[in-house]
């Protein structure tokens, strides 16, 4: 488990990082928390000649509120997300999700930027960002641009990120106070990727669902924004029949692979189960909050 040789770069600014990446093209890889890239390098399945460590760039770190938007720097670790009072009050689903990622050691190093930008279908943050309607800010040699999380993922490890581009921050619209939320993750063991997981944000008015957003993790080659399932919930009290219908809608867009977590049939079924459970939990929280 020893990686091959590479040149290590530690830029101090986004501009410097972009310049180094541009200079080396395909032969360079940005490094954030390293929990995906380093194991692949140790197995020699990834062999970058230049490793551009983003850890020294202070402008990539931190959590702030700008009006009705929360902005999270790409190099903010999951441990930072869990500790943030701002997120705990404005976006508690981020804390709930972060606590279900891997284990405390990994959360100390793992970053939100790496988690969303790597395009690993097993990662938890991409689905959550789709649920929240987040926007990714990208920087590259040709300048800056933004891409919606819901448009970012094209296939397993295949995203809208161009060669030489880095994801610098994520902006998330703050959901209304009193919203209901839940991240329901079914997994074999602590530290594992989801067998299936669902993120839900909703609001209730007069006991009925007023707004609803649902996204699914690890039941396809990309995260899935479950628009139809969410639509089915609007105007209902999330009765048993609605939960079942929403679960069925989530299942219908799922296309999981068979793996150590279960057969494809089972994992698709679980997408329905965790969706119904996430909706029920989010509704109960919204009712309590109201």
């Amino acid at each position: 488990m020893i990686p091959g040789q590479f040149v290590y770069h530690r830029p101090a600014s986004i501009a410097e990082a972009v310049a180094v990446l541009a200079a080396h093209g395909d032969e360079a890889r940005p490094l954030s928390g390293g929990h995906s890239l380093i194991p692949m390098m140790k197995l020699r399945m990834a062999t970058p000649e230049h490793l551009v460590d983003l850890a020294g760039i202070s402008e990539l770190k931190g959590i702030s509120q700008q009006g009705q938007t929360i902005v999270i720097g790409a190099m903010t670790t999951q441990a930072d997300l869990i500790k943030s009072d701002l997120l705990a009050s404005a976006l508690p689903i981020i804390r709930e999700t972060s606590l279900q990622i891997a284990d405390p050691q990994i959360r100390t190093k793992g970053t939100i930027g790496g988690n969303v930008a790597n395009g690993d279908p097993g990662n938890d943050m991409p689905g959550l960002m789709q649920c929240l309607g987040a926007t990714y800010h990208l920087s590259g040699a040709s300048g800056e641009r933004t891409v919606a999380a819901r448009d970012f993922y094209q296939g397993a490890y295949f995203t809208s990120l161009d060669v030489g581009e880095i994801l610098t921050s994520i902006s998330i619209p703050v959901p209304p106070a009193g919203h209901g939320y839940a991240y329901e993750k079914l997994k074999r063991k602590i530290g594992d990727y989801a067998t299936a997981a669902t993120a839900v944000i909703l609001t209730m008015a007069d006991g009925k669902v007023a707004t609803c957003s649902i996204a699914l993790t690890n039941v396809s080659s990309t995260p899935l924004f479950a628009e139809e399932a969410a639509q089915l919930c609007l105007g209902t009290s999330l009765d048993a029949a609605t939960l079942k219908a929403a679960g069925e809608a989530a299942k219908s867009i799922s296309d999981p692979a068979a793996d150590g977590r279960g057969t494809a049939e089972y994992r698709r079924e679980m997408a329905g189960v965790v969706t119904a459970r996430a909706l029920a939990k989010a509704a109960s929280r919204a009712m309590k909050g109201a």
Partner: protein
Amino acid sequence: MGVEGIGQSVVRKEDKRFITGKGKYTDDIKLQGLTQAHFVRSPHAHARIKSIDTSAAKAMPGVVAVLTGSELVGDKIGNLICGWMVHSKDGSPMKMGAFPAMANETVRWVGQAVAVVIAETKNLARDAAEAVVVDYEELQAVVDVREAVKPGAPQLHPEAANNTIYQWSIGDQSATDAAIAGAAHVVTMDIMNNRLVPNPMEPRSAVAQYDSADDHLTLWTTSQNPHVARLLLSAFYNIAPENKLRVIAPDVGGGFGAKIYVYPEEIVCLWAARKIDRPVKWTADRSEAFLTDAHGRDHVSKAELAFDADHKIIGLRVHTYANFGAYMSLFSSSVPTYLYATLLSGQYNIPNIYCEVDGVYTNTVPVDAYRGAGRPEAAFLIERLMETAARQFGMSPADLRRKNFITQFPHQTPVIMTYDTGDFNASLDAAMKAIDYAGFPARKAASAAKGKLRGIGISCYIEACGIAPSKAVGSLGAGVGLWESAEVRVNPVGTVEVLTGSHSHGQGHETTFAQLISTRLGVGIDTVQIIHGDTDKVQFGMGTYGSRSGAVGMSAILKAVEKVEAKARKIAAHLMEAAEGDIVIEGGEVKVAGTDKKMPWALVALAAYTGHNLPDGMEPGLKEGAFYDPTNFTFPAGSYIAEVEIDPDTGKTTVCNFTAADDFGNLMNPMIVEGQVHGGIAQGIGQALLEGTVYTGDGQLLTASYMDYAMPRADDLPSFDIHHTCTPCPGNPLGIKGCGEAGAIGSPPAIINAITDALGHNHIEMPATPDRVWHAIHSRMAAE
């Protein structure tokens, strides 16, 4: 004896260095001029090696040598052996294919070593290994025993037709057939025992040093039995004669059986160290551990248990395919035969047993002993049958067991074993009381009200520890004796060194063995040093496995300390002018009974070494050795009860309660015993719920990392409720039975019996993953 004697929960002496990071493991050994080895391993499960080109690798920076299997052959390094001869039922010896330390012509599993690169650093060795070009001609592979024995299956070794190593049998076939034919009820089951990867915390490691001036080799290695390693390296692998080879097993971070064997890597490091005249180190990374540590279990069985009209067992017939992997590992032949089928009688009076075992080669990692070694397979089989029979009869599983328990001892089973003692009703009573068995229906109803399925499962296991006596195992084919040695050295100041042939790799010997000395000589455990794991210090020993170190290793120490006491009494009697028979050793003093005459223990020791005033003709010194060969196995037994709750929507099983009531005979240190039971149960629950070793059809190990192979974690386990009953073992002077493996033996059937109880669906394979449980629930719903 006081707070440090046997029977007391003395805190482990060794833990200070382990928990402060001061343990000294093989990989911590640093030597002048040390080189690092990296093995080139086969990426194919079955292939012919057409050529190996090492020229580019040899030219890489820092490379000292690149060696291959053909050079091993040239230097007459021996192939790996299997140390237990097992014969087929037709009388023919087992069919063993050659197992070279590095493959020369054919590779037979993914991970088999084909070459070694030795370089100045680990990184340079790893880089150069990329440049070794091996040209393979791929062959068809087979991984499943049922496929491997079919006509037309890929053949692994020319010596073993149909990949079959042996077709062994035990018991009376015609009597068993007749009993089953005439039975009122027969319960028939197909039972799988899943393949497991051992995963000790410390990966295997070896450091070899050659002293050219003395033509002497030293090996530091992660071994459970360094003396046996030296014997094999000398007598069979042609590394060096025993007087020119020292083997040291320093601190070893867990073994579970996987560190009993001499592996190819140790042989190659020793051979290479002499060849390059520099020390060589190799340490496995975790991926290599998954691909090279001997795996455990992997049985496919068909079993029939026959009862009379009164539900008394009248016969058991079993056929088992045992997967050996690609080669026969050191003790592989004994595990699915003498360590398995001899325990099939369980805790029950079974008049007729017949078992056939087919040992089969496949293109997988070699399989050998893993915590329990054969006994977990036997316990799982008989305890699944008993639970299933009770359900078929509509009887309480406890009542059916009680009806068939052996209650008279000694008891001769039809499969070799003579159970010496036990009280199976007592342990079942204790477990049922502790878990509130009677209150289960109410707890089940409470779970049902939450939409959950609750189940309870019993397992009444028996196992055999302290494999012995040497004469008996020799007659069954073992290549070694299974006695143990000890030496007790009293220093002139009265402190004590105990040299033992046992080896501690987590068992706490430094504490329990010192407790024995403390009890006998009345000295504090801090004045006792336990020395083990070094062939230059300890004369000979058989190491630690099969829960033998208490029953056999401590008995040898007791024999030696009794000799020391006898001599000390003679000296004290002479010094105090008293009769030898009146001398008593207690509380750190040597006393004349019935008088106030006494002297400190240390002064007796000093007198032995000054030699100024000893009885006429007595040699100076106070040091005695002993060899102890037991008269029988020991038979730990107990009852485990598991209670589980299943989420029917997800199939996820939660173990809510787990109670163990074990009869280990006398306990030397109850705290350490409890720790051993905890670890064993955790491993057993891991096997039952999580640990599945998965191969693709072409022999790639899919579960070769912790990402894919699910080990149990703290949150997978309940707080265990541990109880003890006691029938002292009559076979050794301390009354010890052994406790190291019981947890892993007794727990898998308890868990699966509980799950099948919850499901009302009698068949589920281990590991009972959420996916399998969910399918079991939904296939039953579909059937209804």
